[in-house]
């Protein structure tokens, strides 16, 4: 196994973690692929922030590779494609050029535009505000508009590589502040449903579920890391909400 192939396979592993794949899936995939390419002994250890691989390619020829992972998102379609690619590599072990081309193809597939992502935030916010009991047209429209605003805001902050906690704090703060102001101006008659609906786009609900899933499947370190991250995000949102609430006297009335 040459270095080029190893580096390409590691890239697949890295992309899987970054796209939000389960840790056990990443470890299993890397091990299978490396064995398919003739490795005698494979040791993979992955957590949400690092992957380490040690391969015995031939008798006593040992290679190590580790890569640091800084940001994790959710990219279901990419996990799907990578998973399919891993299956193919395990079955056929194609030449390294083909693997590289396949990885490039996965990276260059069609993405949602910024506008579509902003719309998705609005859709979540308005649907969940109705879900949690909003019935007035003003409330629903308000949730939709602010949801879109949150979508645009997080997207821009993401591009600026802003701290995720700061991002969540700011969004929760602004949303709560605006909602209370509108409520004071009597533009909307209730605040709870609007705020919950918009907060649903920020809440790390899936983060919690993923964390517990990793914990239960035995990847304790990854689970703990994800759990801490989710708890911090939840605190950031709560802090933004509380600060805005105190400033406007919202909940104190």
């Amino acid at each position, binding site marked *: 196994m040459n270095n080029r192939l190893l580096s390409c396979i590691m890239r697949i592993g890295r992309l899987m973690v970054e796209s939000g794949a389960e840790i056990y899936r990443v470890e299993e995939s890397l091990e299978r692929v490396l064995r398919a390419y003739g490795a005698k002994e494979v040791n993979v250890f992955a957590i949400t922030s690092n992957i380490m691989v040690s391969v015995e390619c031939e008798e006593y020829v040992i290679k190590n590779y580790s890569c640091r992972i800084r940001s994790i998102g959710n990219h279901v379609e990419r996990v799907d494609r990578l998973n399919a690619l891993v299956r193919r590599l395990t079955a056929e072990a194609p030449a390294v050029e083909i693997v590289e081309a396949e990885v490039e193809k996965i990276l260059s597939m069609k993405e949602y535009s910024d506008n579509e992502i902003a719309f998705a935030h*609005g859709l979540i916010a308005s649907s969940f505000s109705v879900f949690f009991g909003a019935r007035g047209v003003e409330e629903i429209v308000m949730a939709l508009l602010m949801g879109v605003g949150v979508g645009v805001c997080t997207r821009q902050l993401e591009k600026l590589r802003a701290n995720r906690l700061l991002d969540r704090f700011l969004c929760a703060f602004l949303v709560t502040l605006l909602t209370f102001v509108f409520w004071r101006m009597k533009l909307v008659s209730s605040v709870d449903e609007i705020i919950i609906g918009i907060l649903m786009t920020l809440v790390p609900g899936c983060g919690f579920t993923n964390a517990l899933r990793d914990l239960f499947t035995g990847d304790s370190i990854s689970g703990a890391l994800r759990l801490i991250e989710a708890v911090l995000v939840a605190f950031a949102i709560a802090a933004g909400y509380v600060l805005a609430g105190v400033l406007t006297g919202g909940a104190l009335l």
Partner: protein
Amino acid sequence: MSFSDALLQVIMAFFGTMGFGMLFRSRGKKLLLASLGGMAAWALFLLLGLRIESEPARYFIVSVIISIYAEVLARVCKTPAGTFGILSLVPLVPGGGLYYSADYALSGDMQAFAEKALSTLSLTAMLSLGIVLVAAVAKFLSSALSSRRNQA
């Protein structure tokens, strides 16, 4: 809760899940299937409420059923089951729990805060327990089946 309210919630569960599916960069047929799963999850939760009082118990049952749905779809579409499972359970994610916890903390009602925070946590735990249980059984079954096939 009246029937029309329940119906409205179920429909909104569909659109809410679809929004999350888009955030998770899911597309086309898979996005639709995940959204239908989200709708089914909330409908099940409401239906079970007619018989079972305890929310954590309902969360667990719904989570198991939806995870089975996800495993089956994953086999059919040849994708990881997590894709559908996590998304379809989005309507059950206790976002309201977090909000009310923060609200009680803000108003200084620590007893209500602790109660709400704990119940939010236990609901999330039930949700993931169901997911993991089904995933473990599915993994065991598929490896048992494939080793048997290899022997034959």
